[in-house]
């Protein structure tokens, strides 16, 4: 089951660059939240703060509070524990090139010392079914490398890999921006189904995509969150002039 995410006065820096300024946000459990905004507005940095990937860059720094469920992720837990509860899918598909399809999906569990073969088989099958890839790969699970799949398949493989560790939240950083329209619509269908089990946060440049998959939408600009509301409201009747300018294509 998904859990809600509560962000209170979050600030983030890269070196001296103050990339996120005083973000407050509540994302409901088992819903999809879309984050939109022009390039460099801080939306990617924001999702990377939600699983503490931001701090893997040595010059990065974060202050503020992020609660995922009832866990204060910057106080109560280590980064590796957070990342098992908060899965992430990146912009470019990044399967492990030397691993088979099966091992890619099982990687998160295997590398953390999980070795029950039968349970792994089941988890791999369930994860690949959940990411709508099972039927396409079930015959070459251990024969083919993850890198041999097409771009769209690789991205669904990466989603399966993230799902296999049974997270509560799934972060998606422009998951379809490197894919063709057919693959994109598959990923969007998938997001729709996954909402019932996970809380989803999706960064996107594609406003139609945000409108299609998300109940809530946040608009970021220059490191601040300008507006956060129901997707319907943001796209039909935004309260901030800057949001309106952005979604009507006047800039960005």
């Amino acid at each position, binding site marked *: 089951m998904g859990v809600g995410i509560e962000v209170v006065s979050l600030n983030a820096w890269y070196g001296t660059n103050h990339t996120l300024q005083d973000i407050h946000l509540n994302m409901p459990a088992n819903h999809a939240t879309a984050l939109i905004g022009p390039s460099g507005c801080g939306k990617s940095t924001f999702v990377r703060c939600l*699983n503490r*990937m931001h701090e*893997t860059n*040595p010059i990065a720094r974060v202050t503020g509070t992020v609660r995922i469920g009832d866990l204060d992720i910057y106080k109560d837990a280590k980064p*590796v*524990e*957070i*990342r*098992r*509860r908060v*899965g*992430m899918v*990146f912009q*470019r598909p*990044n*399967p*492990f*090139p*030397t*691993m*088979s399809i099966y091992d890619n999906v099982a*990687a*998160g569990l295997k*590398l*953390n010392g999980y070795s029950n073969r039968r349970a792994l088989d089941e988890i791999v099958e369930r994860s690949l079914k959940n990411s709508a890839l099972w039927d396409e790969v079930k015959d*070459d699970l251990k*024969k*083919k*490398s993850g*890198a*041999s*799949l097409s771009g769209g398949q690789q991205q669904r493989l*990466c989603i399966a*890999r*993230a799902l296999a*560790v049974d997270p509560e939240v799934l972060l998606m950083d422009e998951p379809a921006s490197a894919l063709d329209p057919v693959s994109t619509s598959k990923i969007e269908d998938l997001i729709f189904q996954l909402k019932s089990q996970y809380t989803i946060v999706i960064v996107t440049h594609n406003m139609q995509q945000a409108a299609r998959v998300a109940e809530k939408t946040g608009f970021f600009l220059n490191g601040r969150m300008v507006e956060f509301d129901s997707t319907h409201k943001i796209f039909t009747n935004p309260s901030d002039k800057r949001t309106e300018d952005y979604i009507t294509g006047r800039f960005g």
Partner: protein
Amino acid sequence: MRALTDGAASALAVLSTVLVVAPLVAIFIYLVYKGGSSLNWAFFTKNPAPVGEEGGGMANAILGSGILLAIASLIGVPIGIGGGIFLAEFGRGTKLAGAVRFTADVLNGVPSIVMGLAAYALIVVPLGHFSAFAGGVALGIMMIPTVCRTTEEMLLMVPHSVREAALALGVPNWRSVLSITVKTASPGIITGCMLAFARVAGETAPLIFTALGNSNWSTDLNGPISALPLQIYVYALSPYDEWHRLAWAGALVLIVLIVLAVSLVRFVTSRGVLKGAS
């Protein structure tokens, strides 16, 4: 005009390819011509015959080279790979890493005879006798810089996105480095190890003051041992035609054995590589 340029560039590429391959082929043909006739069963089963006696072989030298290279690999490969992992993953940007990198580069440039002298001073003199162990150490130290720097370069070539993928799954950094990054880079790392291995397999100078050479069958790590390059060196300098032929045959065997060893490692490590894996 464009077709002409294209044709010229292709011709140059083909010519270069021929020039790259030609020396190896020429050497190989010459070795077969000069030494092929001395290759017989005795060459692989008998020890060198005393002066004036017919026959004899290089069985002890082949075994000695095997032992020396085993010791060298046991020292050079783990230390080199460990150093490379440190340089690329854990020590990036630190002063220590800079110092290690500089040392490795200097070590790579040290003439092999100096390496032999160092092993002589540090191992042979304190122990009071020449030994296979000292020879293996000298060769092993020579392997370290090549293995270390290749490992570093291959690890740095692993895309950042692959490391991020592992970290985002909640895999601890050390685990991600060992199980993901090193594994992804392993074909290149293995190539580096094989290059280092092949290079020291033919080294003579570092063995002169360390392994010394031995005309008898010996597996004693603590005593002098023969090696193919040493035996070739001794025979080539001798005044006897028979020994000259044996030296040519020894050189041929040395090259073939290196090719076999490298091919074997490639074959073993390429099994289990999946379809489509880069």
